[in-house]
């Protein structure tokens, strides 16, 4: 190849990073060189197998840089029809001679309606990939599939991102080269002494230097790991990204449930080098403020933080307003006390833990007003913020009746909403859900309707199950709701119901309009805001023009 040609192909190669798979396919038809040197390697480099096709748009970039292998693109479809397309596409992938080009492969959970047959096919795919042993990231989200393939998975030598389950996961660690990311899933009853022998600990310290660590503890007591690391005198001096979960549970006498404490944590992790932190936490114990104490203890050390994520996790106090308000207070106090927060913080993600049907305790309107005022005090300080991710904000707002009623009756007055909102009003008038605590069917009220809507929109991003901070690295899935299901939703026998999946698209648009006042506020107070994801509605913001637009709805 001529020297000039090489240069131009470097340019093309870089430019191709912004293309989605359809564009790359078109590119591959332009010339043999483009096909061989750019399009094919790029098409196979990063593959993500999803149940539903992803939403595509020319307005944004989330579907670029990856090849999605997905099911049937149709609003009305059954599980077996989706299976056919997905099965066929994976079969075609297996036939390719380019499997060695695959550097990253992500396989979502619960891909097939016919699970047994689907797992066999996926296992075949994973076996082919693992036999080649060139893959750098193999993310198998389905625990059963992972179990089936774990022996081969743990023998892979080139993985840069690793997942470890259970007691034997670290057995082959000596063979692992250059991994920079570890997701460790701990079973509740794990005896750490059997898993992390000092030799393993030293390897972890070495390999994760400059890398990322996620600890997902089934007992929601991740801090026990850091206490154990401390007893081994293990120190992570240069960890860049950290995610952990810990809940101080009420009335839980188990050995693993404990207060949030920063003692060992601060010694083990050099917090001053952390760039990203995602915490799933809460303290449900009355008169205990260990969550606040923990966060206040660590906040001063986080001098390099640019990405911050919080996930509320509750067990006995799900939907209690005062629990949520206290959690918000703890989080916001922590944010305000971060060093250089106005200058450094670029990404903020906050996920609450609302009940499925949205019905909470003490959710009078004034209580939400207090929570809103809290955020109105803190958010304007975050002047460098570019991204806001709020996966459950719709439910957080509409758990309070007045705000849920605003959505249906006092909100957007545009022509579109004026046309469709009365239909959804009719929907709630004619449908009931089964309330387990009441042991009877109850009318679907606006709170319940909004909560089910939020849950349905969350299906766009829920299959990712990784860091909330990374949610904007995935294209959302094209999912719908058939307006039934959840808590045995039924319509009255005398009502001829026409609500199905095809009614979901206008509902998503209505929800995007519901968020307009919130977006109007956000672009006013956050001069550098570029993107938000609010309950599955994606907004792109132009900081220069102070305008925004919805991407998919």
């Amino acid at each position, binding site marked *: 190849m001529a020297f000039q040609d090489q240069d131009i192909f470097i340019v093309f190669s870089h430019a191709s990073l912004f293309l989605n798979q359809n564009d790359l396919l078109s590119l591959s038809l332009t010339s043999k060189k483009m096909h061989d040197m750019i399009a094919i390697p790029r098409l196979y480099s990063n593959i993500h197998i999803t149940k539903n096709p992803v939403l595509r748009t020319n307005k944004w970039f989330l579907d670029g840089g990856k090849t999605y292998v997905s099911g049937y693109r149709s609003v009305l479809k059954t599980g077996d029809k989706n299976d056919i397309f997905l099965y066929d596409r994976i079969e075609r992938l297996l036939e390719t001679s380019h499997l060695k080009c695959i550097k990253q492969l992500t396989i979502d959970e619960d891909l097939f309606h016919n699970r047994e047959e689907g797992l066999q096919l996926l296992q075949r795919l994973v076996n082919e990939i693992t036999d080649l042993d060139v893959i750098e990231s193999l993310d198998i989200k389905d625990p059963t599939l992972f179990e089936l393939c774990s022996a081969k998975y743990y023998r892979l030598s080139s993985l840069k991102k690793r997942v470890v389950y259970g007691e034997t996961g670290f057995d082959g660690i000596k063979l692992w080269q250059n991994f920079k990311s570890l997701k460790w899933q701990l079973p509740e009853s794990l005896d750490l002494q059997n898993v992390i022998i000092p030799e393993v600990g030293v390897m972890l310290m070495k390999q994760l230097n400059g890398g990322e660590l996620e600890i997902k503890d089934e007992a929601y007591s991740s801090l026990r790991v850091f206490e154990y690391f401390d007893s081994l005198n293990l120190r992570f001096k240069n960890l860049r990204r950290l995610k952990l979960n810990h809940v101080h549970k009420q009335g839980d006498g188990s050995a693993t449930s404990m207060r949030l404490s920063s003692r060992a944590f601060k010694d083990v992790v050099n917090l001053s080098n952390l760039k990203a932190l995602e915490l799933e936490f809460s303290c449900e114990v009355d008169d205990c403020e260990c969550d606040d104490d923990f966060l206040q203890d660590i906040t001063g050390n986080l001098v390099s933080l640019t990405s911050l994520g919080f996930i509320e996790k509750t067990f006995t106090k799900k939907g209690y307003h005062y629990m949520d308000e206290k959690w918000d207070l703890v989080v916001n106090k922590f944010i305000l006390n971060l060093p250089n927060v106005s200058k450094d913080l670029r990404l903020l993600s906050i996920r609450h833990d609302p009940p499925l049907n949205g019905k909470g305790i003490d959710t009078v309107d004034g209580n939400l007003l207090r929570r809103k005022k809290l955020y109105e005090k803190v958010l304007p300080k975050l002047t460098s913020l570019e991204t806001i991710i709020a996966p459950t904000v719709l439910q957080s707002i509409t758990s309070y009746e007045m705000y849920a009623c605003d959505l249906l009756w006092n909100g957007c007055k545009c022509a579109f909403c004026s046309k469709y909102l009365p239909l959804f009003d009719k929907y709630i008038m004619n449908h*009931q859900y089964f309330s387990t605590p009441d042991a009877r*069917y109850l009318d679907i009220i606006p709170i319940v309707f909004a909560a089910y809507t939020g849950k349905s929109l969350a299906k766009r991003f829920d299959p990712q199950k990784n860091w909330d901070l990374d949610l904007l690295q995935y294209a959302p899935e094209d999912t719908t709701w058939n307006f039934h299901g959840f808590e045995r939703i039924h319509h*009255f*026998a005398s009502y001829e119901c026409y609500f199905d999946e095809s009614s979901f698209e206008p509902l998503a648009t209505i929800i995007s309009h519901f968020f307009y006042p919130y977006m109007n506020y956000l672009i006013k107070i956050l001069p550098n805001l570029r993107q938000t994801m609010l309950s599955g509605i994606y907004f792109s913001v132009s900081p220069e023009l102070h305008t925004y637009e919805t991407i998919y709805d």
Partner: protein
Amino acid sequence: MLQFKLVLLGDSSVGKSSIVHRFVKDTFDELRESTIGAAFLSQSITIHPNDGNETKDVVIKFEIWDTAGQERYKSLAPMYYRNANAALVVYDITQEDSLQKARNWVDELKNKVGDDDLVIYLLGNKVDLCQETPSTETSPDSNEGGDEEQKVRAISTEEAKQYAQEQGLLFREVSAKTGEGVKEIFQDIGEKLYDLKKDEILSKQNRQIGGGNNGQVDINLQRPSTNDPTSCCS
């Protein structure tokens, strides 16, 4: 309304998609491209069964799975015909080996689908290629052409019919191009399926009317009465 799943099977280019499109849309495309993977369509018909004293129309909706006939899609076939109520096995009467391919499909269906009630319909397509046009009957010149057309047939009606009888299949020769026999296929299947499922359907209806369900309670939501003294609307 009753709903049944119907799949089409057969070698590539025998006209499966054309039969479906003739039935669903009443159209024919000379240049139809090969089906990739599968296509899903639906169409309803009305049958007029005579159940005892009362004659009542029944609407039957077919959920039609039109499959690709190419060999590369063969591994998907079990996913297509799983839970099917009826299968149209199509062959091309002008292609000698296509009946053998159809036989293979019938064997596979019989071996792998456990349902004795599966209705299998053997269809010989493209009869229009073997029929004399009206003009050929009157013109001696065209008669030669007509004879040539006649020669196109590679599989005799008798051979296929005999095979269908041996296997207990429904059988018909059709033309997706002219529409000859297409509607009748679905009418036949609808009536056959209704006949097979009649008892099951009637007992289900009786359970709903009587409210009894082998001791279980069917939940049938009715609007709350406004005479409820505890209701705020009373």
